[in-house]
């Protein structure tokens, strides 16, 4: 692919970076990145991936835009309430950058569809809001040997790690989803919009760096962010020999559909 004059102009501010250049821009335009969940994490990730000229962006989400989403899910506007999130997100991406081809999946990921979906992409961003999906994405990426970025957020805090095949996975730290009854209820949880924004942008940055083969990825590390005290900490960790997925004696041989904790459980 040769860059057009318009593309050279559009991406000029990143093409002048030695880590990008014309070659890197072509790599981005040829790359395919999947964002699972067009919500708090997915929205900022999608906006920046689109602006950067990622040539193919996949979006998986089965939900419609709700008014309670708008406080943090910045790709969706007030007029989009009740619209499918994938269509709302696709419209914005196409307005930002006509170079981007958007592939939409109007569904939630589950054990029977996820492997087929992620197979088409170079890098996967976990922008989901629940533990069953997070473990499913980790396991599917492990089996399909796909790199992905994990993101978790709660109140003013967030955590992220990047998985590349042969490196430590999410289950090396968190072996199994937390017991359902212990997951904080809706009223206890909550999230400040800027936390989702910051973390989603970091995830997009990891995807772009992976495509460009530049810099240091967040592999074998967990970045923890506390916006309330403005603390950033990186915790090093190793591939865990006891990991039920990638350890020495794995017990997980196939994908698992864990039951999602539901909002209206009172505990």
């Amino acid at each position, binding site marked *: 692919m040769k860059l057009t004059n318009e593309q050279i102009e559009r991406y000029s501010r990143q093409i002048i970076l030695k880590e990008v250049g014309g070659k890197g821009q072509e790599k981005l335009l040829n790359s395919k990145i999947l964002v699972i969940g067009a919500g708090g994490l997915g929205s900022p990730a999608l906006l920046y991936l689109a602006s950067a000229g990622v040539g193919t962006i996949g979006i998986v989400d089965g939900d419609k835009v709700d008014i309670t989403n708008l406080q943090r899910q910045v790709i969706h506007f007030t007029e989009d309430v009740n619209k499918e999130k994938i269509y709302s997100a696709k419209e914005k991406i196409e307005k930002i950058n006509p170079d981007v081809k958007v592939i939409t999946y109007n569904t939630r990921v589950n054990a029977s569809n996820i492997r087929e979906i992620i197979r088409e992409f170079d890098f996967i961003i976990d922008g989901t809001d629940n533990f069953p999906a997070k473990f499913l994405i980790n396991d599917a990426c492990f089996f399909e040997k796909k790199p992905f970025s994990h993101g978790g957020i709660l109140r003013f805090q967030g955590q992220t790690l990047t998985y590349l095949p042969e490196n430590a996975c999410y289950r090396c*730290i968190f072996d199994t989803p937390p017991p359902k009854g212990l997951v904080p209820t809706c009223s206890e949880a909550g999230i400040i919009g800027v936390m989702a924004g910051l973390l989603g942008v970091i995830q997009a940055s990891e995807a772009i760096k992976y495509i460009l083969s530049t810099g240091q990825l967040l592999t074998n590390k967990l970045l923890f962010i506390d916006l309330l005290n403005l603390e950033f900490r990186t915790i090093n960790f*190793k591939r865990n020999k006891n990991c039920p997925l990638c350890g020495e004696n794995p017990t997980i041989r196939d994908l698992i559909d864990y039951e999602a904790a*539901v909002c209206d459980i009172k505990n």
Partner: protein
Amino acid sequence: MKLIINGKNEFFEKDSLTIGELLELKKVKMPEMVTVELNGTILEREKFKNTYVKDNDTIELIYYMGGGSQKI
């Protein structure tokens, strides 16, 4: 003894504690929601009760984080 917990030095009167006792002292309400890394190695949950920490150990308490919205 001195323990380095999540990057900060903390001092304890006792010279030895189990991870389980440490989590209680740290007022961790839901130990099932935390992963413990002791000196760079993730500790299996069933070992919380019989693993002792000693002076100068480095401990990371890493919490599960989901989505923060409705279906966490």
